[in-house]
């Protein structure tokens, strides 16, 4: 298994808040060493590898993860707690899971 993390760099060169938050959670959850590679989706560079991966996988939110299995099949995770639970055998708090769901579904709070 090979895990690629795609994080975003804003137009002013700073990292996106959510990406930094997820990086901190990876460290806190003790699973950062399972991330084999980190690439950037750089707003200043439409040809950056991270944006190319986002296009290829139809992803429009950062960060996201591409998990490549032994058979070469790729699975994309856009929600951190799902990667943690389904791939890394970890568990986020209920509050963190809700926050992840809301970040990935910006319309839910309008219900």
């Amino acid at each position, binding site marked *: 298994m090979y895990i690629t993390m795609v994080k975003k760099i804003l137009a002013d060169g700073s990292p996106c808040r959510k990406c930094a938050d997820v990086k901190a959670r990876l460290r806190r959850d003790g699973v950062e060493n399972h991330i084999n590679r980190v690439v950037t989706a750089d707003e200043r560079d439409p040809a950056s590898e991270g944006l190319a991966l986002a296009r290829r996988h139809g992803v429009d939110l950062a960060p996201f993860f591409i998990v490549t299995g032994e058979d070469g099949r790729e699975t994309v995770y856009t929600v951190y707690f799902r990667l943690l639970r389904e791939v890394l055998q970890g568990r986020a708090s209920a*509050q963190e899971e809700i926050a992840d769901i809301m970040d990935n579904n910006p319309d839910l709070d309008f219900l």
Partner: protein
Amino acid sequence: MSLADFDAAARAAEYDREQPQDILQLALDHFDNLAISFSGAEDVVLVDMAVRIRPDVAVFSLDTGRLHPETYRFIEQIRERYNLPVELLSPDPAALEKLVRDKGLFSFYRDGHKECCGIRKVAPLRRKLATLDAWVTGQRKDQSPGTRAGVPVVEKDGAFSTPEHALFKFNPLSNWTSARVWQYIRENDVPFNELHGKGFISIGCEPCTRPVLPNQHEREGRWWWEDETLKECGLHAGNVKAVNQ
């Protein structure tokens, strides 16, 4: 046909041009364990349409504890008009008490609304949806060109499905405009929230909702104090689509 065989993408394409009543019929024909999410606003038309197909259709609302008195009265009016036991979902008391104890009653004006919405709305919604096979929402494309432009009439719910439990989401009003919804309300004498008569379009919690002026978008009446630039994690279409053009 088992629920796992329900092909949401194919049905979305097939029913994209159909009327909301037809989409509701599809939903109710395929799913017994289904409920309508009723926000206490103009999505009341879904209730009016659904009871004509299934008179005892399940309906739930998220009672955040911060709704307008008008909205509570309206929910009660719907219970009586349609003889439906509208299920009111409440926040987890421990989580809510901790939020209020730590941050007070108006933390959303300072810290943003998501933490409060997470506790008062999304967590109870998640708890409820874990018990259902399908739900029905009043989401429409015209409510937000940015985030709802691609709302299909039916989809597998990407937010609340789990590897063990597939959940399907029907959005029968997706292709209707606000004007069409109000035409239905008038033509069918459907009750509506009295806040609509006071300039409110999108209705949420009392501290986070305000009336809008003529020609203001309905979303300008919600969380107006928040900075749009904080929503910075989108891989914007301009960037994502830049290559191959």
